[in-house]
C-alpha cells in the first residue's frame, strides 16, 4: 500500500514535468506536419497530417528557403572544422600543460578558464570589431576561428584533467627508455586519451552547430550563413510560414540530438563532470 502511494506521488510529479519538457518539442513536430490552416487554428493535432512541408523545404520552394541545402552544408562545414581544429589545439595544449609541464602552462590554463567563464555574448562585440580589422567579416573562416576560440578553453581544461589522471609512471618509464616528447605523445598519451577526445570533439562540434549569436554577427550574406541564422531570417516577417520554419528547424535539430543520444553516457558524464568540481 505504501509502495503504491509512493508510486502515485512520483507519477504526480512526472506528468507536469513531462508536459513542460516536451511541449515545445511536440509543438515543433506538430507544426512541421500541419498545413497553413491547422497551424493558424492552433490545433493540438492537425486535421490532415501532411509531409508537404518537408517536400517544400527539400525542394527549396519558398523565399526564405532559397539556400536551405547550402546553409545546411555550411552548418556541417563550420561544425566539423571547428571540432577538428579544437581537438588538435586542445589535445596539444593539454599534453604540454599536464605531461610536459611546459613553462607558463599554469597561467595559460587560468587564462583559458577565464575565457571559458566569461559569457560569450560579452566577447562578441570586441571579437566582431577585431574580425573587421582582420578583414574576415562575412567569411565562414571568421566564424570557425571564433568558435575555436570559444570551444578550446573548456576542451583544454577537460583534457588536462583527464591527462592528469594518467599514471606518471608511464611517462617516467618511457623517458627512461629514451623516448622523446613526440614519441611520448604519440605512443602513450594519444591512445589513452581517446575516450576523452571523442567527447571533446563532439562538444566543440555541437557548440559550433548550435551557435546563433556569433554566426548572426559575423556573417551577413545568405550564401555564407549556417542554417541556425537562416532560420532566424524567418523572424523578419510577421506572417512568416511558421510550419516551414518548424520543419526546417526540426531537420536542423536532428543531427545534434542523434549525436547526443548516440554518445549519451559519455557526453553526460564527460560534460557534467567537467563543469562543476565540488
Amino acid at each position: 500500500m505504501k509502495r503504491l502511494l509512493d508510486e502515485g506521488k512520483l507519477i504526480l510529479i512526472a506528468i507536469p514535468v513531462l508536459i513542460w519538457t516536451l511541449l515545445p518539442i511536440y509543438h515543433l513536430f506538430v507544426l512541421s506536419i500541419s498545413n497553413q490552416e491547422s497551424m493558424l487554428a492552433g490545433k493540438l493535432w492537425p486535421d490532415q497530417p501532411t509531409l508537404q512541408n518537408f517536400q517544400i523545404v527539400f525542394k527549396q520552394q519558398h523565399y526564405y528557403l532559397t539556400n536551405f541545402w547550402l546553409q545546411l552544408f555550411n552548418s556541417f562545414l563550420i561544425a566539423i572544422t571547428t571540432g577538428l581544429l579544437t581537438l588538435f589545439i586542445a589535445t596539444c595544449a593539454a599534453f604540454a600543460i599536464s605531461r610536459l609541464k611546459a613553462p607558463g602552462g599554469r597561467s595559460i590554463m587560468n587564462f583559458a578558464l577565464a575565457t571559458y567563464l566569461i559569457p560569450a555574448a560579452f566577447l562578441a562585440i570586441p571579437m566582431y570589431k577585431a574580425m573587421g580589422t582582420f578583414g574576415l567579416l562575412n567569411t565562414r573562416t571568421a566564424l570557425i576561428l571564433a568558435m575555436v576560440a570559444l570551444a578550446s578553453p573548456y576542451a583544454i581544461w577537460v583534457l588536462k584533467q583527464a591527462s592528469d589522471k594518467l599514471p606518471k609512471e608511464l611517462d617516467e618509464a618511457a623517458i627512461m627508455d629514451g623516448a622523446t616528447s613526440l614519441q611520448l605523445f604519440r605512443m602513450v598519451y594519444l591512445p589513452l586519451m581517446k575516450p576523452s577526445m571523442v567527447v571533446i570533439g563532439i562538444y566543440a562540434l555541437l557548440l559550433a552547430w548550435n551557435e546563433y549569436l556569433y554566426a548572426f554577427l559575423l556573417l551577413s550574406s545568405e550564401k555564407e550563413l549556417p542554417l541556425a541564422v537562416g532560420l532566424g531570417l524567418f523572424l523578419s516577417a510577421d506572417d512568416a510560414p511558421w510550419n516551414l520554419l518548424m520543419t526546417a528547424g526540426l531537420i536542423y535539430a536532428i543531427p545534434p540530438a542523434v549525436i547526443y543520444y548516440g554518445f549519451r553516457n559519455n557526453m553526460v558524464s564527460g560534460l557534467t563532470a567537467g563543469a562543476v568540481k565540488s
Partner: protein
Amino acid sequence: MTAATMATSTPASADATSGQARDRVFWGVLMLAPYILVFAVMVAYPVAYGLWIGLNFESYKALFADPIFLRTVVNTIIFLFVAVNLKFLIALFLSGFFVQQRAWVRFMLVLFILPWAVPSIPTILSFRVMLNPENGMINQQLFQWFGIMEGPGWLTDPTLAFASSILVHIWKSLPFWTLILVTGRLAIAQDLYEAASVDGANKWQQFRFITWPSLATLYVTSTLLSMIWTLGDFNSVYLLTGGGPGDLNHVLATLGIRYMRNNNLDLGIASIIVAMPLILPMVWFMVKRLSKGAE
C-alpha cells in the same frame, strides 16, 4: 628526479637527460603555441581593443542618460535573481525525483534532457510561435477549452513577455543543472539514509541533515556558475521577444548587441564594461576554485 640521479652516473647519459629536458621544453612550448596564438588573436587583442574604446568617458555619460539602459540594468538583475533561484529550487527538487531507482524514472531522464540536447534556435522559435497571442497554440487552446476570446499577450504584454523569456531560459538550462545535482546526490552514501530511517528520521529531516549538508557546496558553486552564464544568455531574450515589446525587455547581453547593430559601437562596449564589476569577481572566484579542484 630522474635527471638528478642520472646526472651523477655517466657523462653520456647526463647529455641524454639534459637533451631530453630541452626536448620537453621545446615541445611543450611548441604544442602550447597554437592555443596561445588563438587566444592572442581572438581573445586578448579584441579585449584590449575593446578596453581602449571603452576609455571614452563620453560613452558612459550617454549610456547612463539612456532610459533603455537603466531599464535594462534593472531587468538584468531581476532576470538573474528570479531565473537562477527558481531554476535551482526546481533542479534541487527534481534531482530528488530522478535519483529514484525505478526503470521508468530512468527512462524519463532520457526524455528530460531533450531541451539540453536539442539546439536552442528551433525550440525557442517554437516557443515564440506557440505563445503568439493570436494564432499560437496556447491561446487557441485556451479559446477552445475555456472560451477565452482574448488570451494573455504572452509576448506583447511587457511583464508577461519578460516572464516568458525567463521561463524559456529555465526550460533550456534546467536539465543540465538537475543532472549536476543528481550526480551530487548519487555520491552520498546510502547507509546514512538507512541509519537515519532506523532512527526514525522523517523525509524532511533526512533532507535537512544528510542531503543538504552534502550538496551545499555543489549547490553554491553551481549557482554561481549559472549566474555567470545566465548573464550571458542572449538567445532566450533575443529570439523570443527581440528585447521587446518596445525595447522594454532587454538584458545586458542583448542590449550591447542592439547598440552595435544601431552603429553605436562605443555604447555597446561601454554597456559591457559596466557589467564587468559584476562578472569579473565571479569569474575570478570560479577560476581559483576550478584550478584548485583540478590539482
